[in-house]
């Protein structure tokens, strides 16, 4: 019985009494195998009862409880183990039958379908019969229940007589399943119509729950009508937001147009992020914008940032980067955009955002956004911005045509760095992408001891 050995091997590290359990297991498997009746096959598998008792249940009214009481205690351990197996193999859903040991045996039954539902029902059994013991397993198996329930089921499963097994497990994350586990509770009708209705209601409830999670503030409301009200309001609110934002964008858009006349299609924003204390991030793109990272370790020294590149066209246009517009948060201990720290983007209003490169840090971050706009006239200074600390005196742009590079020098005072963790530069460069597909931008930070 390599099946059993296989299963025992799997269960070895987990359980204590594997030997005893496997013996019982063997019994149950034999019972399952020897119970051939047509309709009741799935039924039996569901109940995990010996065949004769299952047949009794099937044919009796759906109210009797005596028979199940006999075998349930033995089954619960089986179920527990099965549940643990499914927890163990919860990830491997490639073969449906791998997660429950009895699945492999059920192949003999030529019905894999009913047994697939076993892990699902085992957990419900655990729920109902052993609330104490099953708490850790239920906790573990909850995600597995999701995984299990996502497998394609061949049909609805019906349990005529069961203890008060709730549908909590089957409700979890079954949104996209074509079929829904439906269990008739005690005393409920089991004809196909009501079952279908129940299944439909279950699906609707699942989807409503998902919607409730999406719409903020809907968790406390109960009742379909009110929840629908909230959903409608939320959708209308979002659509209105989109309209407002599109109006804003329509206004702002000409700004780009104005800026970039002929090389319009080849404009790209660069984001240059200077980081200190050598925090390395692997983020390469921010909102689709390429990012150059530069790390600088010495936070107490003034430094010169040199942006040099090796493509001629870019160098020429660097010459046109003339205005430095620097903005930063006046309060050095807080971030400019607090919402970035949670990386939730939950707030509607977001000031200048540099998402996720610095989000994962625990330290408080001080971010500044600098912008260098490409204009065609040499203008220096930040008259309009009182926070500018890069003035014409301490920065200059030079272009070295022989080396095909241009440099932007900024000289910072040392006071900047004591609380700074990163600086971000938004550089708008006019660059002919089509001609020069390869362009390298090198960012050098030089220490500047003089001055």
């Amino acid at each position: 019985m390599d099946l059993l050995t296989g299963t025992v091997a799997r269960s070895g590290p987990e359980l204590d009494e594997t030997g005893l359990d496997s013996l019982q297991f063997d019994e149950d498997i034999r019972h399952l195998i020897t119970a051939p009746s047509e309709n009741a096959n799935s039924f039996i598998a569901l109940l995990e009862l010996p065949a004769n008792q299952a047949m009794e249940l099937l044919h009796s009214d759906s109210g009797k409880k005596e028979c199940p009481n006999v075998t349930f205690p033995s089954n619960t351990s089986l179920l527990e183990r099965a549940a643990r197996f499914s927890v163990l193999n919860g990830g491997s859903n490639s073969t449906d039958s791998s997660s429950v040991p009895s699945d492999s045996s059920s192949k003999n039954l030529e019905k894999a379908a009913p047994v697939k539902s076993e892990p699902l029902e085992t957990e419900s059994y655990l729920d109902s019969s052993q609330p104490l013991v099953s708490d850790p397993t239920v906790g573990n198996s909850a995600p597995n229940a999701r995984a299990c329930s996502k497998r394609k089921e061949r049909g609805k499963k019906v349990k005529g007589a069961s203890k008060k097994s709730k549908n909590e497990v089957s409700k979890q994350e079954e949104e996209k399943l074509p079929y829904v586990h439906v269990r008739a509770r005690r005393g409920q009708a089991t004809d196909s119509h009501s079952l279908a209705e129940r299944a439909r209601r279950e699906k609707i409830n699942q989807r409503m729950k998902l919607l409730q999670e999406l719409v903020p503030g809907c968790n406390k409301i109960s009742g379909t009508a009110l929840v629908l009200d909230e959903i409608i309001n939320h959708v209308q609110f979002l659509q209105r937001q989109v309209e407002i934002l599109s109006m804003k964008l329509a206004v702002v858009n000409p700004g780009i147009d104005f800026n970039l006349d002929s090389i319009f299609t080849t404009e790209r924003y660069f984001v240059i992020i200077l980081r200190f204390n050598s925090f390395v991030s692997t983020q390469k793109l921010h909102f689709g914008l390429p990012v150059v990272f530069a790390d600088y370790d010495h936070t107490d020294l003034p430094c010169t940032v040199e942006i040099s590149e090796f493509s001629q066209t870019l160098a020429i246009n660097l010459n046109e980067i003339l205005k430095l517009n620097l903005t930063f948060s006046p309060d050095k201990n807080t971030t400019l955009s607090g919402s970035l720290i949670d990386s939730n983007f939950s707030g509607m209003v977001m000031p200048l955002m540099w998402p996720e490169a610095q989000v994962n840090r625990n330290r408080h971050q001080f971010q500044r956004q600098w912008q260098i706009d490409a204009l065609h006239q040499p203008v220096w200074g930040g008259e309009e911005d009182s926070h500018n600390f890069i003035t014409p005196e301490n920065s200059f742009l030079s272009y070295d045509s022989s080396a095909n590079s241009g440099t932007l020098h900024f000289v910072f005072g040392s006071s900047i760095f004591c609380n700074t963790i990163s600086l971000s530069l938004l550089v708008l460069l006019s660059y002919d992408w089509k001609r020069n597909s390869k362009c390298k931008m090198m960012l050098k930070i030089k220490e500047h001891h003089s001055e």
Partner: protein
Amino acid sequence: MASNQSNCDESSQQELNQLRKKRRKSTQTTESHLQKDGTGEAKNQPTVRWRAYTARRIYSSKLLEALLRSRRTTSPRGEKSREVRETADRVLAVAARGKTRWSRAILAKRARLLRVKKVKKPKVGCDRMLQESEKRKKLPAVERKVKVLSRLVPGCRKVSFLNLLEEASDYIAALEMQVKVMTTLSEILAVAGGGAGVGGGSSS
């Protein structure tokens, strides 16, 4: 002290790749244990699809491109905002990859505009409708709300309640992402544009 390089072609390459290839990366770690699911259901949950960072990135880059392109081609004097909005919606629908009804409906709207509009036939039982509307029941409040909701979600007027809920959840997630991206984009562009404008003014 270190210096880093960035490949400028990488960004354009990436955008091209985004347009061509499908991105299957999911950045959600909580759903990672579900990723081995055979049917791949985890990735189809609306929250996962639209909250992943890749989705935002794809959408923002596509939106930027589309906006720039639309600026070049057409410029209706009075209704720029509507055009921007429709562009944004279309790009959102494209980002949905056609798996949802509302996305297909949004894309179909534009195609329908190009065709000749059909003349709507007047309903036959008009009087009867009016009579019935007088004794209209106010009871199915849920039904009324369902109708309102179905009108809000594009392309979902004659869809069953169940599918409507599903479409609505996906639509809400997509709208949230759209709002976030458009907010940040408008911030970027506002600051960039504003800086340029002021600089141009001060130079003269």
